[in-house]
């Protein structure tokens, strides 16, 4: 039986900039930040209240996985906003929206009532979109 998800990948344009965004704007914590075998940087962040879920912030670079052309294509798709980072939960969408907006986070949709709760949508500093959701049954 699979019990939970431990790691998921978000492709970013620059790991230092992404770390600054996820740590200093979204308030996440660093899980791992280490050099593995040569220059590969293994960088993960997680919400403070959920260290069990690590978001791997990875740069698409030419290497074993990607050719130069593929890496460039992925970078261009990230910039176009073709990828989503996922859904982050909050216990107060309006308040979190105001706090993040004040920190300079770019929102593409303000808090809006949906069937499942109140949801805002934003972009990280690479161009990945994410939702901020306050579930209706969390209060």
């Amino acid at each position, binding site marked *: 039986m699979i019990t939970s998800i431990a790691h998921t990948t978000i492709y970013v344009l620059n790991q230092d900039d992404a770390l600054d965004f996820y740590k200093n704007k979204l308030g996440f914590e660093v899980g*791992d930040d280490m050099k593995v075998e040569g220059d590969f940087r*293994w960088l993960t962040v997680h919400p403070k*209240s959920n260290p069990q879920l690590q978001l791997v912030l990875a740069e698409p670079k030419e290497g074993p*996985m990607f050719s130069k052309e593929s890496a460039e294509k992925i970078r261009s798709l990230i910039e176009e906003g073709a990828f989503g980072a996922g859904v982050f939960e909050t*216990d107060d969408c309006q308040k*979190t929206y105001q706090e993040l907006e004040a920190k300079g986070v770019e929102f593409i949709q303000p808090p809006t009532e949906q069937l499942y709760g109140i949801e805002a949508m934003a972009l990280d500093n690479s161009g990945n979109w994410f939702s901020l959701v306050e579930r209706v049954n969390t209060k």
Partner: protein
Amino acid sequence: MATNHKFKRLNASRDFIADNYHAPLSLSDIAKRSYMSNYHFLRVFKDTYGETPNEFLIRLRVEQAKNMLITENFTVSEVCEKVGYTSLGSFSSLFLRQVGMAPTLYRRKLWALSSEAFRFPAQAIPACYAYHFLRKLTK
């Protein structure tokens, strides 16, 4: 779940621990950052983050120690001191409990696996990522 206001106060304490993990920390010093009594703070912290402040502190110290053991040439005693422990015996027992092996053995094992000095081996990250980014099949 803590309210947004309470969560902010708790985060102040958690950030205080993260910024000062290498120093001697008392519960009252930490709880003070959240404007709570020691008992109340302990309870709310555990409810919110799923671990006690002390468990969080130990986790940070052990993670930092693991990093130093691999990427730096410090002795185990120096690592022990740098992550905030004064007794080498206590540090070694704690490390053994948390990681499953003594600090020296951990260092020896990972250095032996690594193809490059002062770098984590591919085995230190989940195998699917090691394969994805490094084309290494780990055993």
